[in-house]
């Protein structure tokens, strides 16, 4: 624990010191002499981003419900604080007890996006914990990871003792119980890991050997200990109502990105957009009941004092009983001074009554994800949205008084041509034109259409995992062409340099050989790679060179349909056969209906042990 004096010295010269002091309402304090297990829940990005993350709130509450466990939080300190801590010799500490991470039994990281990998190493180093799992025995904390990136965690395999594939509600509690048992029994690290590997969803990277062919492709991945599963099957919460959403949050004082109460209404997604990793790896689709959602949301608002409630999921409007949820929430929200917001709405079922039920808050902007500029390309990516639906959504929005619309697009999608790029500009122009045809549009105001164009990154466990990523040159050309197609000042185009997307593409589909590269880049000064001002592409290229690893092998190369991918010893539910089928349909621009309408046989239903929907009953 740093002395008050040391801490005060560090806090004296940093921006927003409130990020490093803890003491927020809802944070849990326990007597450390009376707990059996201490968990440091680490988010490898700034406090503002980490505190916006719902997953941490869910697990923080679940773990702290155990009287003899204490789960605390740590975040990546901003550059100024990192420097202070290094200068003053203050090790990275958890906000609740201010105890250094190395005193904990479990140090867990949430891997939400690939570019946070160097921050994980930075946080371990700030804690004085050896970076590589091979260099840590039972005297060191068990360093674990969870989150979507674990669906291909191979690039980080060298650094973690344990990775958690899938949903953490039960798995993390099982891990904690096992570590508590091992601690009391005095197990060594090997024994501990062997016991942990028995827990569904737990992946111990060191227990698998990877062999490579002469062309650098993976020949095989095989367990090297008896009793370790050849494939790790994702952990899943079968019944979403069996784990109620959190009824309390740590309420940040320093303004964070998402600073409101939020309740996860469903998990998984029925849509099957072919570019979307979340839509595949969180399958199958499971809903929470309106009664539970409303009850827990009300308690959450009462406990935290939040005046804004957000309904979270990959696609909230796909909840089969959304109207009932909103009616239940609206029954108390106004009296409790809570306003509702619904992110993740889709244009195709965005209705008048939805707008009315949620528009008590101030009108700002509306966002529609069109993803591609032409119907052909939207069919390729299986984003089953038509211009008529976008038009309908915008028409409702404009009539309701909105004057700015944001459209999300991607570029660099498989089969994309310049025609499709022009389609982005055309779609935006059509929205502008639409505005002026609506008699009840807000008067005296112009319309603003913002197109946010992201660079597509092929991700594992999607039908597009087989595809190569567009090169930076191609993307630059497309960006330039798009700008030349825009002829109105009412249309604003946002895009960013593709260098970070390239690195994201490499890590997403990478294998274990990238561990050395990540460590090299980190040792040469890379961290906060998600922050443009700290991202140094050339330093990364130098790291690849120094390690003798060809980055293009990972993202600029198409994977054969029968090739062993680095992530094939994971099982997230959806099967290879389904991904191949979807990929081939994509090349033919054939769509696949949402899975609540017709099962497309992705294979994820085996995790539930039966069909995901009662197709014989008319649910829709």
């Amino acid at each position, binding site marked *: 624990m740093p002395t008050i004096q040391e801490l005060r*010295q560090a806090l*004296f010269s940093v921006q927003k*010191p409130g990020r490093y002091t803890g003491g927020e*309402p809802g944070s849990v304090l326990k007597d450390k002499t009376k707990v059996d297990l201490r968990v440091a829940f680490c988010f490898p990005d700034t406090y503002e981003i980490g505190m916006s993350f719902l997953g941490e709130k869910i697990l923080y509450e679940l773990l702290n419900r155990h009287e003899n466990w204490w789960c605390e939080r740590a975040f990546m300190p901003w550059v100024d604080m990192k420097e202070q801590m290094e200068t003053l010799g203050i090790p990275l500490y958890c906000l609740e007890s201010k105890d250094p991470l190395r005193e904990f039994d479990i140090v867990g990281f949430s891997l939400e996006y690939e570019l946070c990998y160097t921050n994980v190493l930075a946080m371990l180093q700030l804690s004085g914990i050896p970076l590589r799992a091979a260099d840590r025995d039972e005297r060191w904390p068990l360093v674990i990871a969870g989150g979507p990136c674990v669906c291909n965690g191979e690039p980080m395999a060298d650094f973690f003792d344990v990775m958690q594939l899938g949903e953490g509600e039960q798995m993390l509690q099982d891990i904690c119980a096992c570590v508590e048992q091992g601690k009391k029994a005095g197990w060594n690290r090997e024994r501990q890991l062997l016991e942990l590997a028995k827990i569904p969803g737990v992946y111990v990277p060191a227990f698998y050997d990877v062999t490579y062919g002469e062309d650098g492709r993976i020949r095989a991945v095989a367990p090297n200990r008896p009793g370790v599963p050849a494939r790790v099957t994702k952990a899943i919460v079968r019944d979403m109502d069996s784990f109620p959403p959190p009824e309390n949050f740590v309420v940040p*004082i320093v*303004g964070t990105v998402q600073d409101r109460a939020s309740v996860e209404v469903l998990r998984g997604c029925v849509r099957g957009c072919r570019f979307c990793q979340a839509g595949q790896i969180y399958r199958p689709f499971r809903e929470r009941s309106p009664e539970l959602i409303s009850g827990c949301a009300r308690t959450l608002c009462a406990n935290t004092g939040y*005046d804004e409630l957000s309904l979270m999921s990959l696609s909230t409007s796909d909840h089969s009983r959304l109207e009932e949820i909103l009616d239940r929430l609206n029954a108390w929200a106004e009296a409790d001074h*809570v306003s509702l917001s619904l992110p993740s709405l889709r244009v195709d079922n965005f209705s008048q009554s939805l707008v009315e039920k949620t528009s008590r808050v101030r009108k700002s902007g509306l966002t529609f994800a069109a993803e591609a500029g032409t119907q052909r390309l939207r069919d390729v990516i299986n984003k089953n949205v038509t211009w008529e639906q976008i038009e309908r959504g915008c028409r409702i929005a404009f009539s309701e008084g909105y004057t700015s619309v944001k459209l999300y697009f991607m570029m660099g999608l498989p089969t994309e041509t310049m025609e499709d790029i022009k389609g982005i500009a055309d779609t935006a122009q059509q929205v502008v034109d639409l505005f002026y045809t609506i008699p009840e549009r807000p008067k005296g105001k112009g319309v603003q259409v913002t197109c946010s164009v992201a660079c597509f990154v092929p991700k594992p466990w999607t039908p597009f995992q087989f595809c190569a990523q567009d090169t930076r040159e191609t993307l630059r050309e497309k960006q330039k062409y798009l700008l030349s197609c825009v002829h109105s000042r009412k249309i604003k185009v946002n895009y960013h340099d593709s260098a970070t997307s390239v690195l994201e593409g490499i890590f997403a589909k990478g294998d274990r050989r990238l561990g050395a590269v990540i460590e090299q880049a980190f040792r040469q000064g890379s961290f906060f790679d998600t922050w443009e001002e700290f991202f140094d592409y050339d330093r990364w290229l130098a790291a690849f060179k120094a390690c003798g690893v060809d980055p293009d092998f990972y993202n600029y190369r198409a994977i054969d349909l029968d090739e062993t991918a680095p992530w094939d010893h994971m099982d997230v539910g959806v099967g290879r056969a389904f991904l191949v089928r979807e990929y081939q349909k994509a090349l033919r621009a054939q769509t696949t209906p949402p899975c609540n309408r017709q099962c497309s046989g992705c294979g994820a239903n085996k995790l539930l042990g039966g069909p995901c929907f009662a197709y014989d009953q008319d649910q829709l």
Partner: protein
Amino acid sequence: MLTIRISFEKRAEAAYISLLDLQRVFHRILKRSGLPVYYTQGFNPHIYLSFNCPLSLGQESICESCEVKTADENADLNAWQDALQPYMPHGIRILHIGPAQRKSTEIQAAEYELTLPPAGLEAVEAYNRSPQVLVEKKTKRGRRELDLKTWLPALQAEPLAGGGCKVTVRLPCAAGEGDNLNPALLLASFAPCGVQPWQCEILRTRLFTADGSEFR
């Protein structure tokens, strides 16, 4: 319309809550509480909320306050305290909620208790010996050089058991227009004697009006 003063202390971790964040926290808690506070009547109505003489980051206080308004003349202010306190950050403790007796513009001075490290004793002596103690004050209008002796001709150091000492000072502190002097400037002037600002604690203890009476 009644002006209600919420008096609170801001200590420990709460010392690092900026005014901006504090305002946000209070706004949210007040709105959520449903208490009959007055909302401005503009295009985007928001709660009328005004903090008096906000502290610098890292300083503590046992005499902070803010003001809200209410149209409800018979509001049960004890209930207000119960409604607000549970949601406050650690270190913010509401001391009193009551109708404002005086206007915040009457605040003229603040008293601070400074806890200094062992080198502080010498720093205080050096201060008292100097005919002039010039410090630079940054304002929106630029930099200004001030002589601290104008306000503090001499300091009284009260030695503490564990080494170090305590100094109590009264400095100009105005809620609106008027002179303001941050005690951090005094601490900065101790630097040549080896007293670093982060070795010191600053606790604001009382506020005073022009006639020298305590502002509550």
